[in-house]
Structure formats: structure tokens, C-alpha cells
């Protein structure tokens, strides 16, 4: 567990123990409102993807903004269980659930919440049905449509229709529609990524049309994310967008998504200043995260950032003229906040430079 020095509510942010996550509430609220206003009066609705932060307080803020489906999207059953303990009661699991242990957990959760799970395999459908029927619960099932060959899901053609029918014929299961399980691509150009993703959306739409042509009615088509929510959300036949990054935002989207800017940053402390062009901080890879790309320094956005496990290294092109003292704070915007949030047990919610709330992240580390 994190063991920070406690600072009272109302403390100036610079007095907080570092390294730590700081969430600017004003920016967060603007981000949430930007996305909420897009979905206003649309057919497609938002389903906040909350595994990107693991924080029930934040999930409830996202759900309270209008025009969501009323539930959240998670990556694992363990995350759903954690959020279920915090009053969220509608989950869509972006994955398949195949082992007996997990199927038992899924059915137990289905007593307390609406649960949707994906399938891509007929024998899994049989296993789910048997367990759900025995438990006396109903599980909503979507057929996963792969984004390309050799990825999770099935092709949108006959096999998708067959699976849909198999679900529909199974006791304890309710066929709900189709879902793509999209991996974020390393494409810096959001518009290029959006263009590429139209293909994924189209596969889900194709599946919908094939199913409907076969007389199977389709309630849900879930595709896309923060990177393309306006496109996917405006596409006929799409019903929900599992977007999550929009709330805390990532450096990777910085300046590339209108009305959204980074609300979460990591505050670190200068621990060594051995040379004029090199600032060492207490926030290394384990605290700032760089699985998907390097963070951006707020004070020195052009600097080369090196993160060893426990140290941050801000490499300046030329020695700085600023007076740098040990103890000064240096801020970083993580490249991918979803990766970084998973390193912490809590986040500091700050407004106007003062601590306003401390939010626990009970879904952190719930990989099971």
C-alpha cells in the first residue's frame, strides 16, 4: 500500500507528499461535460470505461453526467466486483469468461447487477448457460466481433449469427448484441486512427445486419472509445461507446481531442540537480508509468524524459536559467493515464490548488 504523509483537506497542493496523482477537478468536470454534451439526444449512449482509473467516486461522476447507458465498461470480473461494492450495478465486461471459477463469480455478480459478457465460442455459450440456469440468474451476452483476424472475437458473418442464435436459444442467457474489443493502437495521429477504426465499427454493423437479416433482434452494438467517440457515436446502428480516457485524459491525446485536456498529472519532487541540464526527481517508471509512451514534463515540455524504475530524469537541451532547488515540484502528464492509475491506491482531487478530496482506487490491481 502507499504510505504517504497525510495532509489535511484544504492543504496547498505543493505540500502533498510525492510522487502522487493530482486530479484537477475543474478540468475533469469540463472533460466530462464535453463528452456528455456530445451524447445529448443521440441514439448512441456513453458507457464509461472505468478500468482506466479504478475509482468509484469518479465512475459515479461519469454516470451522473446525462446520457449514459447507466452502467460501466470494465476489463475484468474483479473490477466489476470492486465497483459493485460501490453501488455501480450495470457492467459490461470487455472479455470472455471461460473457467468454472470465473463463471461462478459471473453468475453470483448477476444477482446483484446487470452483467453483460462477451462470447466467441459455442462451448463457452453452453457453459455459461448451464451455470446461469443452475444459479437462476440471467446473464446478458454479446458476441465479440474481432477487429482483425487472429484477435478476440469472431468474423461478422455466419459464425457471428450462429453464435447469436445459440445464445438466444440458451437458458439463463439473453442475447444482447455485438461488441468489438479494441486495442488502443500506437497511432499518434488521431484522425488516422479514427479512419482505421471505421473498419472495426463497420464489422460490428455488418454483424448486426447479418443477425437482423436472420431474424435475430439486436439491442446493443458497442464499439469505439475516446479516440473516435464522435464518429462512432454518430454512426447508424451503434448503440454505445465504451469510452474512458476522456475523463482524466492522456498526454497521447493532448491537443488532439477538442474540449478535452489532461486532468490528471503526477507531481514529483526534485531530489538531485547534478548538472544544469539535468533534473532528477522522485518519480520514476514505477510512479509515473511509461508502458505506452513517455510522459510530458509540464515545466519543460521539450525536455527528453528518462525514467528508470525509481528516478525521473528531465534532460534539458540547454542548461536552464530557472533557479532549481532540491524540493521543487516537477509535474508530468502521463502518456497513458490508464497505465499510471493502476500504480496507485488513491488520487488527490484538487481544485484551485488546494486538496479537496482523496479518492480510493479499490479496483486497482484486480486482474482476475
Amino acid at each position, binding site marked *: *500500500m502507499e504510505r504517504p504523509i497525510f495532509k489535511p483537506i484544504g492543504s496547498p497542493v505543493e505540500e502533498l507528499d510525492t510522487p502522487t496523482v493530482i486530479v484537477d477537478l475543474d478540468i475533469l468536470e469540463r472533460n466530462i461535460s464535453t463528452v456528455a454534451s456530445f451524447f445529448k439526444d443521440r441514439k448512441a449512449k456513453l458507457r464509461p470505461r472505468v478500468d482506466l482509473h479504478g475509482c468509484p467516486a469518479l465512475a459515479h461522476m461519469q454516470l451522473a453526467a446525462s446520457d449514459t447507458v447507466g452502467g460501466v465498461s470494465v476489463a475484468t470480473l474483479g473490477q466489476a466486483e470492486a465497483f459493485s461494492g460501490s453501488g455501480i450495478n450495470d457492467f459490461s465486461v470487455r472479455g470472455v469468461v471461460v473457467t468454472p471459477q470465473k463463471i461462478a463469480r459471473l453468475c453470483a455478480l448477476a444477482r446483484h447487477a446487470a452483467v453483460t459478457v462477451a462470447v466467441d465460442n459455442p462451448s463457452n455459450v453452453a457453459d455459461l448457460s448451464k451455470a446461469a440456469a443452475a444459479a437462476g440468474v440471467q446473464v446478458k451476452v454479446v458476441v465479440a466481433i474481432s477487429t482483425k483476424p487472429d484477435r*478476440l472475437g469472431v468474423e461478422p458473418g455466419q459464425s457471428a449469427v450462429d453464435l447469436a442464435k445459440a445464445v438466444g436459444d440458451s437458458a439463463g442467457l439473453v442475447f444482447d448484441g455485438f461488441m468489438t*474489443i479494441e486495442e488502443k493502437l500506437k497511432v499518434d495521429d488521431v484522425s488516422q486512427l479514427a479512419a482505421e477504426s471505421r473498419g472495426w465499427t463497420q464489422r460490428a454493423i455488418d454483424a448486426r445486419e447479418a443477425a437482423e437479416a436472420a431474424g435475430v433482434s439486436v439491442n446493443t452494438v458497442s464499439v469505439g472509445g475516446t479516440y473516435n467517440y464522435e464518429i462512432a457515436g454518430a454512426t447508424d446502428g451503434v448503440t454505445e461507446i465504451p469510452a474512458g480516457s476522456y475523463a482524466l485524459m492522456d498526454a497521447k491525446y493532448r491537443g488532439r481531442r477538442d474540449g478535452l485536456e489532461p486532468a490528471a498529472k503526477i507531481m514529483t519532487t526534485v531530489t*538531485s540537480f*547534478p548538472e544544469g541540464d539535468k533534473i532528477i526527481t522522485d518519480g520514476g517508471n514505477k510512479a509515473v508509468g*511509461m508502458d*505506452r509512451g513517455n510522459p510530458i514534463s509540464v515545466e519543460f515540455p521539450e525536455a527528453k524524459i528518462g525514467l528508470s524504475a525509481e*528516478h525521473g530524469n528531465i534532460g534539458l537541451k540547454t542548461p536552464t536559467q530557472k533557479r532549481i532547488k532540491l524540493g521543487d515540484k516537477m509535474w508530468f502528464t502521463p502518456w497513458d493515464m490508464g497505465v499510471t492509475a493502476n500504480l*496507485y491506491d488513491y488520487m488527490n482531487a484538487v481544485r484551485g490548488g488546494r486538496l479537496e478530496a482523496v479518492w480510493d482506487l479499490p479496483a486497482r490491481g484486480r486482474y482476475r
Partner: protein
Amino acid sequence: MDNYRPAVGTPIDQLDTPCLLIDMDALDNNYAVVAETYRDTVCKMRQHTKNIKSPRLANMQIQAGGTLNGVCTAKLSEAEVMVEGGIIDVLIPNQIVTRDKIARLAALNRLGDVKVTVDNADNIETISEVAVEQGVVIGVLIEVDTQMNRGGVRSPEHGVVLAKLAMSLPGVKFRGVMSHQSADGWPDADERMRLSKELIGICLEVKDAIEAEGIPVEMVSSGETFSYAAAAQILGVTEVEGGSYALMSNIYGYLDEFQVSNKVLGTIVSTPSPNIGIGDFGMKALSTAAAANATIEGISGVTIEEVQDEHIVLRSDGTEPFVVGQQFMLLPGYQDHMPNRWDQYIGVRKGVVEQVLDIPARGCHH
């Protein structure tokens, strides 16, 4: 956080995956190698707990032998966990600079001997002030930069200035010098010895310069897993800060006396084509560093095709077709990040759970 504590004796194939395993036989082997290596040397192991984040694992090495009965930790809060874990001799090879944190370091020195490295005069003065206020003495070592380009003095002269300053101030006790360097990626032991000598030599130059001023240098803390054998043979080095050797990583595979003991157990959840298996964990549970150079055990002929956030895509050469529900193990390329992402190790021996070990220093960023 997760709180998964399967009963002792549970067979692996009944575990709910993914889980972070420790192969206890492999761990015992690694600890025995270190115990043997340092049995008769002056230089001893000071295990680095950043790789394990568990005082129980650190105490196991202390019991096995080869150590100076102490550890080093990356952070102050990690040091607290180790002192609470009964380990009194701790070195923090890192800078502690804010008054809040120095006060906490001072308090910890009532319970143990918790030393810290310095590279800055202002910092030494602040440590002195706070220690005097609290009525304790804090040991300091001069950090020397030999290669890493982060903290550390850049010259023997600067080292001498700081050592003299530490000697002159109340509340601090000058204990020695410390450096960290990276001689990994050198499978050739002779080349590792040459490089270790060269880099650690920079630290020893600072030691010599300080001693030339008549100041005794008690500790020279240098060397890591990749130089653990070499450093023990470099005259003047008193201790080695090895961390990776305990749980090991594929990239240090050339140190073939150690075995990879830290593995992620997963389950195949989908086989979109016969030679593709999709596993139930991904980058969040691993880190880029763990994923790079990772290998797969438990299913033959398998390579890693892609590591997504929450899934891993495996490719089979056809030797053993994937089956939905089958388990596999991932051996990490680089292990260090994983205990910072998981809340429990499941210790297994001969295919069953032997113990569940908490990771209490997970998240100890402070």
C-alpha cells in the same frame, strides 16, 4: 487491491488466474547461490528490496546467509516496511530532500540504522538540522555517479567537499560512498569483470580521495546482480546491492546459476485460430519491460505475438494446439515492475500452493 489467498495445498490448476507466482524451489536455489558466493568473502550482499517489496522474502535471504543482515530500499516508505519487517540495517541509495520526509527518516532511525545517500550540500545541512531537532544521528553516504547520469557527485573533489561537510555537522554521520551502475547485457564474465572494475573504480576514486583527507570510509556500497560475482572480488567494495537475482528476469539469463522464479500464471480464454491463443492478462499486469523478452512455459512451441492492455496474444508453432481453459506461465523479460503491480505472490512448489505472500511495499512510492 486484490486479496487472493488460496488455501495452502491448492493445486495450480485450480487457481483463479491470472496470478503472480513464485516458484519456491527456484527461489531457494537463487538464495543458496548468494549464500554460497558470499560465505567467506569480506564483501556481503545487501539485498535490494525494490524487486521484491516483501520483508518476508528479504528475511529469507538473511536466514539463508551471505548478507550483512541488512537491505537497501528505493524509497523511504519502503524502508519503513522493512524496518517493520524486523530488518534494522537499511540503506536508502537515493536522495531524501523534503523536511517532511527527512523528519520521517529521523523517526525511523529510532528503530533502526537507516542510512541515506547524498550528493548535495544543502541536503546534508537539512538532514543535520532535522536530526538534531529530533535527537537522532542519521548515517549518510556520498552517492557517486559512475554511469547512470542521475544523482551522484561527478568528481572526487565534490565527494571530498561533501564528506568534510558531513563530518563537520551534528546529527549526521559520514559512513561511506555508494554507486550504482549497469553492467548487464554482457554475457561474457570477463567483460563484466572489466566493466565492473572500470565503473566501480570511479566510486573507489572518490573513496580514496576522502581517505586521503584522513576521513575513514566504512562502507563502499557498489555492485548489482549482474556484477555480484565481480564486485565481491574488487578490493574495497564492502557490499553489493543485488535485487534482480531473487526473482530473476529472462534478460539476465546469462547468469545461469540463477533461475527465473517469478512467473505470471494465465489461462487461454480464446483461440480465434488453431495457432493463436489469447491469454487473460496483459500489459497492466506486466509492464513494457516485463513483456519485452518474456517467454512462455507450460505449452510447447509458443511465442508472444502481442501484449495488449488486458490480454496477451500467443502464437503456437503447431507443436501443441491451444485449448480454451488451459493454463500457461509467462517468464518476464525484466521482473522489477511486477511486485509494484500485484498485491500477493502465490508461492508454489511441485505444483501446489505452499504459501501466500503479501507484497506490503507495493505502491511505496513515497
